[in-house]
């Protein structure tokens, strides 16, 4: 349905060049060339030939290494920067969180800063006044609001910035690494806000180095590399390939080329789960279990560099609520390579105490350090029965006669 609408943001062959700093009279020459409408002779092409559309309700993540041009792209879309080449169309109110607390002045009180920041977003004085209670509540700064900003902790400044920026619900929200700052509870608050925003039909453009945030908040992703689009598509795919590319880069040049033939094409470079079975049945089908029967999760893990990977296996409710998870590293269990260079694993959950309902078994390949989680393979299964017990798990119990 959304495909037939006009996109909120449309980029067609957009490029942005920055003039390289030069000495002497070149600055005057630059002014002259700008006035005539020509480009300066020495430029750095920060972005080239960027084309994609963002429709209402979409959430798009931008990934890429530092200096790839992500921030420039967000600035273009936010309207801070004009494209040098190509066409950029924007519709609706675009809210930009390029840097929380931009325009805040340390000598003024939080309240004064709210008024200026709101004015920068185009709010009238009366509009700001009607929103100020909501902003104060979200920022949760208390009596400090009438203190100069320089006495705030950095967390308070960030909270105030986010509260101001989200006081007007924009048609498109653009954020740049905003989630990287602030403490845990603030991040949670932001994520909850963004999820609500997305659920209410909001449109999000998120730039982050956290593939977790990208995959959690964005359905689509665009990978920018050296000023060009390297890949666009579903965020899970883009994030996986992006991580794979990083692995490739970080890998020592001597490659243990064990089983590249058995690995599927797009996940070649990273640790990943090659296959997964539940009770010996492969992932295409939903299997059914009787209550208290055994569940065996088995499969193979691929290692790109011949080092022994770890495997994480977990069980979640169909809605994603986690129930149990375990990593081979926690149990000091080491996988062993088979003849094809893959690492088979098998874990048995005896007398699975789950209550009737649909569950999902997940497995993730992890690096030999047990630090990073790479992929995500899952298979659903049903637990049968008509128990009236509540919750997810049957807990052993007995009633005591009194």
């Amino acid at each position, binding site marked *: 349905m959304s495909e037939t609408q006009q996109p909120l943001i449309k980029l067609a062959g957009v490029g942005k060049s*920055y*003039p390289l700093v030069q000495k002497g009279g070149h*600055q*005057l020459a*630059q*002014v002259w060339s*700008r*006035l005539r409408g020509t480009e300066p002779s020495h430029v750095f092409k920060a972005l080239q030939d960027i084309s994609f559309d963002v429709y209402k309700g979409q959430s798009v993540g931008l990934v890429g290494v530092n200096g790839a041009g992500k921030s420039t792209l967000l*600035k273009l879309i*936010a*309207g*801070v*920067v*004009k494209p040098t080449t190509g066409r950029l169309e924007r519709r609706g109110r675009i809210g*930009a969180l*390029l*840097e929380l607390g*931009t*325009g805040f*002045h340390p*000598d*003024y009180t939080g309240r*004064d800063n709210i*008024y*200026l920041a*709101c*004015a*920068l977003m*185009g*709010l*009238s*004085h009366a*509009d*700001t006044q009607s929103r100020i209670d909501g902003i104060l509540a979200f920022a949760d700064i208390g009596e400090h609001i009438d203190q*100069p900003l320089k006495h705030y902790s950095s967390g308070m400044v960030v909270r105030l910035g986010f509260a101001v920026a989200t006081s007007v619900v924009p048609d498109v929200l653009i954020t740049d690494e905003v989630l990287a700052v602030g403490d845990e509870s603030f991040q949670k608050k932001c994520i909850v806000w963004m999820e609500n925003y997305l659920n209410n039909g909001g449109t999000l453009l998120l730039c982050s180095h956290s593939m977790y945030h990208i995959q959690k908040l964005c359905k689509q992703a665009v990978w920018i590399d050296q000023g060009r689009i390297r890949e666009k598509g579903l965020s899970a795919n883009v994030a996986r390939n992006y991580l794979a590319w990083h692995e490739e880069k970080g890998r020592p040049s001597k490659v243990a080329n064990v089983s590249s033939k058995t690995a599927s094409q797009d996940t070649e470079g990273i640790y990943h789960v090659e296959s997964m079975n539940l009770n010996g049945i492969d992932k295409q089908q939903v299997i059914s279990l009787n209550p208290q029967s055994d569940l065996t999760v088995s499969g193979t893990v691929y290692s790109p560099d011949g080092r022994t990977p770890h495997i994480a296996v977990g069980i979640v409710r169909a809605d994603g609520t986690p129930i149990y998870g375990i990593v081979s590293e926690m149990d000091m269990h080491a996988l062993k390579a088979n003849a094809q260079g893959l690492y088979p694993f098998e874990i048995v959950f005896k007398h699975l105490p789950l209550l009737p309902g649909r569950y999902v078994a997940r497995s993730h390949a992890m690096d030999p350090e047990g630090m990073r989680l790479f992929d995500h393979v899952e298979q659903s299964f049903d637990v049968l029965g008509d128990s009236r017990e509540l919750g997810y798990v049957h807990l052993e119990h007995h009633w005591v006669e009194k």
Partner: protein
Amino acid sequence: MYACSALTVAWRHRALLWALTRRDIQNRYTGSVAGALWAFMHPLALLALYAVVFEAVFKVKVPNLFTGQPYVLFVALALWPWMAFQEAVMRGTTAVQQNGALVKKVAFDHELLIYSAVLSCFAIHGVGFAVVLVILGVLGFNIHFLGLLSLLAFVPVLLLMALVLALLLGALQVFVRDVEQLLSQAMTVLFYATPILFPMAIVPRWLAEAMHYNPLVHVIEPLRNGLLGQGSFDAESIAWVAFVSVIAFAVARAFFLRLSPYFEDMV
């Protein structure tokens, strides 16, 4: 059309313009104990200094001036409009550069930075001028208060002139940092090329002819004459100056808007 749309922009973003102007004014006084009181102290101190130097030491007498109108009054009436103009141009010139953080991160009309810088200077020195006029009036100096009405014509024109220079130089300063340095030199020259410390009447003819190319001459001199109750209000002259200023403003704004998309590259 460039001049009219400036008003549209200013009106549409009046909340931002107001907030920026307020910030500019607050910027100078926050953290100081006396706060905005300095806005009053500064002109008074300057006035006292001029009184001592010119009245007690130099005993300057201006020819053609009515009796009972001392030199300090003569200077004061031209000095405050000049200070407003000069400071507005200087601050306007660095306005975009100094707000680089905003220019880099927020999408807004950059011209508002220039307007707020100029307006804040006129506001501060406007208050200073009012204080000086009141003090001089209370002290019994013969100020022609009907001349105050003529300020309604002269001050907007002076403001327009400051805006013209601030727009031109403010845009240029982003690219060429030498502008600020050159400007302080140029302002000293302009100060003496404008009848502030002296009346045009005592300037030799050849020099006066050259000075007439300085548009400030056509504002400062009649403004002071009005307040001194000398001469008559020359509506035709001020209308002509105003007309030229509006044209110049339109050109300056076109120049600024042409360069403003590239500010982010440079600040």
